């Protein structure tokens, strides 16, 4: 097949200008030994031993390695030219350019590094590998940015939990119940109720040794009768919550209702069932 291709050369020769026209997209590698004019979209590497012209409207995304590069359109990628690179006024280029001679005409937009001189031989494979480092100058930044953002997101919740967990043991333990209770809403409501109760119990334990006895009593009573346990704990709650005293006094049944609603946990249930 290669032979056939060679046969065609004398017939068509250079008379045929290779054009990738406006409505055409090429994704992949383009190699050649003749001029190439791009009016469409090419994504990938372009390797030519002749001149590459990116016309106005043409877009090349990828590394370019040619003898001469003329840009009227858009190039996103590094370019290495053994001859020269000319950026015309309408050119938009993001990438590093390397050529003995580089011309940037007024109006051309360029972001990237330029290196002039005989750099061609130093990086023979510079433009051949589409996604390698050099071309990644802008991509690299995006890659760097991505991981930088990622750790931040998990860090926030971790801090919250740590601080919340650390406080109870500290001097600020009194205030802890509130912060501990607050994170409750994050978690399903089930957790909020016990956390409030536990926080209150903690308050009781920390304020005075007496509440500890109450707890002991409660446990002891609990073994005999859970109703007594309710009373004991309810008293503790009343002592604890100043506002709640009046309310509880006014509506005892309500408080009992709350208790029983919240109570039915493992021990209570077991006893109920046993008694029943």
């Amino acid at each position, binding site marked *: 097949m290669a032979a056939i291709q060679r046969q065609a050369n004398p017939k068509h020769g250079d008379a045929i200008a290779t054009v990738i026209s406006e409505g055409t997209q*090429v994704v992949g590698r383009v190699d050649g030994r003749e001029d190439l004019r791009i009016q469409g979209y090419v994504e990938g590497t372009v390797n030519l031993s002749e001149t590459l012209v990116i016309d106005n409207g043409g877009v090349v995304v990828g590394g370019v390695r040619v003898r001469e590069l003329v840009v009227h359109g858009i190039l996103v990628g590094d370019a290495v030219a053994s001859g020269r690179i000319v950026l015309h006024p309408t050119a938009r280029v993001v990438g590093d350019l390397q050529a003995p001679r580089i011309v940037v005409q007024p109006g051309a937009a360029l972001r990237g590094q330029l290196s002039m001189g005989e750099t061609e031989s130093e990086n023979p494979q510079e433009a051949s590998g589409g996604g390698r480092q050099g071309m990644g100058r802008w991509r690299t930044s995006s890659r760097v940015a991505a991981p930088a953002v990622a750790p931040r997101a998990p860090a926030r919740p971790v801090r919250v939990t740590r601080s919340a967990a650390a406080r109870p043991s500290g001097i600020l333990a009194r205030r802890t119940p509130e912060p501990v209770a607050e994170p409750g809403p994050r978690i399903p409501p089930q957790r909020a109720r016990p956390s409030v109760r536990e926080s209150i119990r903690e308050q009781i334990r920390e304020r005075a040794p007496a509440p500890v006895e109450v707890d002991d009593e409660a446990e002891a009573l609990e073994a005999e009768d859970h109703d007594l346990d309710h009373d004991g704990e309810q008293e503790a709650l009343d002592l604890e919550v100043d506002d709640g005293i009046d309310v509880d006094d006014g509506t005892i049944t309500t408080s009992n209702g709350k208790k029983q609603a919240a109570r039915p946990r493992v021990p209570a249930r077991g006893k109920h069932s046993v008694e029943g």
Partner: protein
Amino acid sequence: MANTVIGSTIVIDGEISGDEGLVVHGTVKGKIDLAEKIEVAQGGVVEATIAARVVTVHGVVAGDIHASERADLRPESQVIGDIRSPRVLIADGAIFKGSVDMGNGG
């Protein structure tokens, strides 16, 4: 010049798509997906799956051809692959190996 032309020394390895005509004098490997005509000129080599409205082959194609309107194998052509098209023309002298499906045109 509305057509895309791939010159004889050009080798494209990848995918070509578009809504304009394509003339291949060079080599294309991979996949070609066009809404228009594709002509594989004499000397042109396509090792790719071709989908286009009209496919005209003077050169060499190794790969399936799906032409929604017409597939035209000219005398010098060599085609290895299946052809799916409502109209298939195979000229005298064309070399073809594969199957032809002219049903519905797909």
